[in-house]
């Protein structure tokens, strides 16, 4: 139509003219020009169009242009016979009243506006590309988007207010339209991310109900073109990926500034955008959106989880990805080396869970030269809510295994709400000449950081145990900064990487469980505060400082641990991205060079002289 406008011949059948140009290419530029002309003209009928028999008020021109664009997009994408009658050469309505004609066309084309996320999700999955790159490199592609729309913005800022008071049908039509174009998308079966459908000519929000949701300027400051309350076609997943990230960041910043109205609107938008993504990005965005929503509406997740559920989740996480296995094997190697030559050993485990770490250690002890030592295990775990002694059950299983492989085994379980509640005297420690002690903590110490006193107390307790070795495995990320926005950004990067690495796993049920497991962590990091926020991850450097100042000296994990870890990682299907890295004697497991967890080993800094504390 737009091109037709410039090459018009007085044609009795305006529809064919319109049709031929409608099926043409992108007409963003033309629309711009048209609107320029419209703005220049005074009110009253547009002269040029009037000459052709179209009565369009100049003030309506922009509106008409928008609708024509939408119509064009929809018609270009039509593959089924649904509106083939429109493509034929018949005039349906009186074209002299262009505005109403377009309205009726559009409402005809739109199915009832029920937003069906299942359909949208399904089609989005079909049109996907990896968003890993787009996430990490938003700079390159986002400049493209901003360039396209900058000019439009300036024109539209004045018109936004006008457009904001548009008829309701526009807004209702959005979700339906989005679905419709996406359905045709699958027929196209385009595999490229740059879909056939032109990328949104104007960025519009889908939050759809009110035109005063948020001032466009606030969002524009993040480099997104000004968003009006017009519909958006969610078809280009790569650009949506970038928009999604921007929206997440914007929402976090709004929360940081306590601008909860803006945050609320953005969270809704994130929900829609997330659905248009596929794979890891969608899941991560969904979990973060949920966490942000919890923070905004103050619906905090109830802490303590049903023990059996958390056990199941933990088990699936153990099975799906190498992180826990890596942690266990590397820690075990350090403990094994520290226990060399000892006749009687005692391991104190802060992270007992199901005791998956210890069979391998017991077997390695059983096979060592000189025969196995007497093995004593003290497991510490949280209280359970179903009157069962989970720790004791785990102990029984380990005892059974120990008997099978002929290792002398002794077990004791301690239930404690927090590690800080314990005292070294409770643990029945024997003199260090008789028994060598190892302390093991896998993903447990960071929970103590909610109270600064707690970590100091626990570390001094550990020192009192006089361990041969202390093995600590922690997440390699700083999710404990004082500023919410920084924590949010960090955790977004961290969990995106983590979810990415899960994508290659074998069983989808395991994968889903692992994602739920991680989702709970995300919820805790983002939504909770104060004592409720347990997932206070800190980086290896921070832990090094902390442990160094508490009186511990690092122990280098040997090449055996490194080799074993590398071999283990090589076994994981879809695991070419995993890599072991050595960092000053500590081992870090990462995905595509982004370290995710770190194992470190420590001993008392000064064994001979009593540590002054």
């Amino acid at each position, binding site marked *: 139509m737009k091109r037709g406008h410039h090459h018009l011949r007085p044609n009795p059948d305006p529809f064919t003219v319109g049709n031929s140009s409608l099926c043409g290419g992108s007409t963003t530029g033309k629309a711009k020009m048209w609107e320029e002309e419209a703005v220049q003209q005074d009110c009253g009928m547009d002269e040029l169009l009037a000459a052709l028999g179209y009565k369009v008020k100049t003030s309506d021109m922009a509106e008409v242009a928008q609708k024509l664009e939408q119509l064009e997009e929809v018609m270009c994408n039509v593959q089924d016979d649904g509106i083939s009658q429109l493509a034929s050469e018949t005039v349906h309505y009186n074209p002299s009243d262009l505005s109403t004609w377009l309205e009726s066309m559009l409402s005809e084309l739109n199915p009832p506006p029920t937003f069906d996320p299942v359909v949208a999700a399904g089609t989005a999955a079909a049109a996907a590309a990896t968003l890993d790159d787009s996430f990490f490199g938003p700079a390159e592609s986002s400049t493209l988007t901003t360039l396209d729309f900058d000019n439009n913005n300036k024109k539209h800022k004045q018109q936004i207010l006008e457009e904001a008071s548009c008829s309701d049908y526009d807004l209702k039509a959005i979700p339906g339209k989005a679905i419709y174009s996406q359905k045709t998308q699958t027929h196209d079966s385009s595999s490229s991310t740059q879909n056939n459908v032109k990328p949104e000519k104007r960025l519009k929000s889908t939050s759809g109900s009110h035109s005063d949701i948020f001032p466009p300027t606030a969002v524009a400051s993040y480099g997104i073109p000004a968003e009006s309350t017009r519909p958006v076609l969610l078809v280009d997943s790569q650009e949506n990926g970038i928009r999604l990230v921007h929206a997440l960041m914007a929402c976090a910043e709004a929360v940081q500034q306590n601008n909860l109205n803006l945050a609320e609107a953005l969270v809704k938008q994130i929900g829609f955008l997330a659905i248009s993504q596929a794979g890891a990005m969608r899941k991560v965005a969904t979990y973060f959106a949920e966490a942000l929503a919890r923070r905004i509406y103050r619906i905090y997740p109830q802490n303590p989880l049903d023990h059996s559920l958390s*056990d199941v989740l933990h088990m699936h996480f153990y*099975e799906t990805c190498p992180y826990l296995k890596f942690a266990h094997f590397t820690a075990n190697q350090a403990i094994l080396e520290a226990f060399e030559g000892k006749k009687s050993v005692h391991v104190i485990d802060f992270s007992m869970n199901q005791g998956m770490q210890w069979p391998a250690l*017991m077997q390695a002890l059983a*096979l060592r030269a000189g025969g196995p030592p007497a093995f004593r295990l003290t497991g510490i775990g949280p209280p359970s809510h179903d009157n069962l002694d989970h720790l004791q*059950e785990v102990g*029984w299983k380990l005892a059974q295994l120990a008997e099978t*492989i002929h290792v002398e085994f002794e077990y004791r379980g301690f239930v404690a709400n927090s590690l800080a509640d314990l005292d070294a005297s409770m643990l029945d420690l024997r003199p260090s000449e008789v028994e060598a002690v190892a302390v093991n903590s896998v993903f447990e110490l960071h929970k103590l950081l909610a109270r600064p006193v707690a970590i100091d107390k626990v570390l001094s307790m550990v020192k009192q145990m006089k361990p041969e070795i202390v093995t600590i495995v922690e997440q390699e990320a700083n999710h404990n900064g004082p500023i919410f926005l920084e924590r949010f950004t960090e955790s977004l990067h961290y969990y995106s990487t983590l979810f990415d690495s899960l994508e290659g796993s074998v069983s989808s049920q395991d994968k889903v469980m692992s994602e739920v497991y991680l989702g709970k962590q995300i919820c805790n990091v983002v939504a909770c505060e104060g004592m409720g926020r347990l997932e206070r991850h800190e980086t290896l450097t921070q832990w090094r400082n902390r442990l160094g100042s508490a009186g511990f000296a690092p122990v280098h994990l040997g090449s055996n641990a490194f080799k074993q870890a590398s071999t283990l990682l090589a076994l994981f299907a879809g695991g070419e991205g995993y890599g072991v890295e050595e960092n000053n004697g500590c081992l870090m497991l990462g995905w595509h060079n982004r370290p995710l967890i770190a194992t470190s080993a420590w001993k008392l800094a000064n064994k001979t002289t009593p540590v002054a504390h």
Partner: protein
Amino acid sequence: MQHHHRNRHRQGQETVEENKEKRPKFFINDHVDILVEILKRLDGRSLGVAACVCRLWCTITRNDSLWEDLCFCHLSPPPSRVRSIVVALGGYKRLYMACVRPVRSRLGKVRGASWTRDEAQLSLSLFCVDCYERLGGVEGSNSSTGRLVGESSASSLMFLCKPVNV
């Protein structure tokens, strides 16, 4: 060997008698020690196939020592404690099927390629974890918990399985 076996069946009574007159027939099944020596040198898949030949062969291939050689043939003889542990945890055949074979194929080891001690140790550890998982709950424990653990148990080696294209 299989050809030989089949031949024996194909031959009618008369031919058997004829051959007996001509020269002493060599049936491998009469010489179990040789059979064992031969079977020892087979790879995993062939051993599995051999187990399906006849009852005698089936019995022989069930012998764990055949599988032991398969698991650790390229390593210097491990201490005897390994044997007792492996046997206690379920036997060499299980070790091979559950751990060694998938590990070796994942790591791209061709039969005959060197199989390092680390890899063997890792397989053993994974095997141990697997056995631990299979240990059921203890009598007196709440059945629901036991069931939960039982349901999710024995899948720590899932990551070694090939993804099934559904």
